[in-house]
């Protein structure tokens, strides 16, 4: 094993039972659990450091500001941003994507301009563009997904022709597919478009280097990477952020306000109106430290091993009964496994698994266009993270047999 064997004990929530069974948490693509050090860091912030940031002249406020900006620096380093000022804190990845749509796209796109997305996007990378289409008459183009769960790039040149933005997920939250972001960035740039990346499933699980990915914008959320809910990130190249108008107006985001108008603050604060979520940022900073201590290469290796074990075990134990969507090669995917079990509805599968203490998600996973491609309304989804191990997957394979006991017709 590439991660410490006792890692589960870092996560207090995992030490409980449901329906007389030890919790097996397989829903980390939805939200991750939090290590004690993150919980402690947030409690410590409120016990010792809390004050409003960027405005007090007293020592406590200076410390609170340092806590917020220290967290930003950790995040910047974690994703290899060129500058700390390229890291904008938001509420979550959805807000980051809306900031991109409302600020950059609303300013730079005109009626008839095209935005290219893919059929495997989360609604967070679909609906803001639908909204912009309704508002400004932009054109929305879709990269198709093939039957193996990969993007079909055969028509990419045509799709990118005249496009202003390519916005694609780095890792599908349904199929686990890893998309060739660096290559897509190059092709977008060659076509004169900018590249945005939904990295919500990628940053928590992969060593991330925004410069190597060649992207212009990249969004992710804290709660899927061991940090609390309520803190997300928009990373963008500094010159893009500089040229973008503010998203929300209010305190914090200004240098000066008169009766005639306002002067926007410098980046990144220009985009952070109002009192920010400081404790959540501190939690994210601590989560980044925790992941860095584990080593993101080890995190990735652990997940490839575990995904390989899961694909093998589920297939061996349940054969033709189970259909697992997405790439069959573990190295080409993340630890997100959407599956169909026989003709049993995913809600019923999840209900039976819950009775064995196993938490999986059932539904459309906020990716309805992809569900249409897969020809279904819903899937069950088991997703992995650092605290999962082989025994969790053995229990999943065991508990699936109970589905047969109830639903075998």
């Amino acid at each position, binding site marked *: 094993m590439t991660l410490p064997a006792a890692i589960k004990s870092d996560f207090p929530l995992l030490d409980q039972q449901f329906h007389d069974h030890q919790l097996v948490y397989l829903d980390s693509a939805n939200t991750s659990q939090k290590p004690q050090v993150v919980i402690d860091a947030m409690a410590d912030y409120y016990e010792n450091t809390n004050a409003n940031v960027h405005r007090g002249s007293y020592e406590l406020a200076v410390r609170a500001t340092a806590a917020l900006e220290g967290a930003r620096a950790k995040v910047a380093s974690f994703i290899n941003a060129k500058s700390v000022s390229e890291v904008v804190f938001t509420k979550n990845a959805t807000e980051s994507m809306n900031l991109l749509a409302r600020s950059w796209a609303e300013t730079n796109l005109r009626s008839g301009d095209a935005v290219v997305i893919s059929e495997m996007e989360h609604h967070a990378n679909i609906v803001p563009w639908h909204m912009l289409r309704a508002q400004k008459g932009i054109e929305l183009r879709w990269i198709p997904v093939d039957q193996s769960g990969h993007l079909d790039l055969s028509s990419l040149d045509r799709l990118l022709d005249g496009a202003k933005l390519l916005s694609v997920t780095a890792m599908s939250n349904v199929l686990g597919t890893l998309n060739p972001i660096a290559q897509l960035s190059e092709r977008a740039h060659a076509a004169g478009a900018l590249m945005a990346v939904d990295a919500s499933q990628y940053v928590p699980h992969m060593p991330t280097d925004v410069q190597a990915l060649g992207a212009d914008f990249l969004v992710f959320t804290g709660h899927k990477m061991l940090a609390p809910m309520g803190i997300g990130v928009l990373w963008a190249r500094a010159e893009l952020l500089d040229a973008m108008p503010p998203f929300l107006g209010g305190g914090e985001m200004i240098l000066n306000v008169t009766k005639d108008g306002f002067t926007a603050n410098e980046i990144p604060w220009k985009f952070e109106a109002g009192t920010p979520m400081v404790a959540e940022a501190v939690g994210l900073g601590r989560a980044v430290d925790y992941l860095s201590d584990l080593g993101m290469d080890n995190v990735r290796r652990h997940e490839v091993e575990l995904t390989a074990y899961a694909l093998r075990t589920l297939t061996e134990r349940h054969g033709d009964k189970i259909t697992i969507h997405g790439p069959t090669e573990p190295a080409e995917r993340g630890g997100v496994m959407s599956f169909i079990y026989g003709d049993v509805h995913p*809600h019923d599968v999840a209900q039976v698994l819950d009775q064995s203490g196993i938490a999986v998600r059932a539904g459309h996973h906020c990716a309805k266009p992809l569900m249409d491609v897969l020809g279904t309304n*819903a899937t069950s989804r088991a997703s992995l993270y650092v605290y999962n191990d082989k025994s969790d997957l053995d229990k999943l394979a065991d508990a699936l047999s109970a589905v047969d006991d109830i639903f075998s017709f």
Partner: protein
Amino acid sequence: MIGLEDLYREIILDHYRTPRNRGELETPPAQRVEGFNPLCGDEIIVYLQVDDSGVIDDVAIGGQGCSISQSSASMMSVAIKGRTIEDARKLIVAFKGLMSIHETEIGGDGSEAALGIELEGAAEDMKLGDLEALRGVVKFPIRIKCATLSWNTLAQALDEAAAA
């Protein structure tokens, strides 16, 4: 302890395996109304044919979903066939009562109280029959929306039929 046997009663699984009144009706004369559960993407289509005297003389169910939504729709179709629009409305109230949804809380927002509240008034004399088997759903609050999907769709279809 709450067990799965409280949820997956034999009669429920029977309606899931062998759904009654499955199919489509010609529109018009039938009403066709679709219902969605945005949580899971489940979809129910209710076809309702009402004669001149306000009696539901035919009903058909389409769409796809989990065992609870499908069996509830199947049992509902059996329960309302041959009844008047008025009786079908009473049955909706009675069924929602079974799901612990109080009459006064049935509103546009579909809010559902997970508290056991006695039924009152008009719906008291309605016999739910096989539908009683769905009583166990209340112990699994997340599934109440599955069980009520077809009934909310029916309510809309009745309104449209009455207005037609």
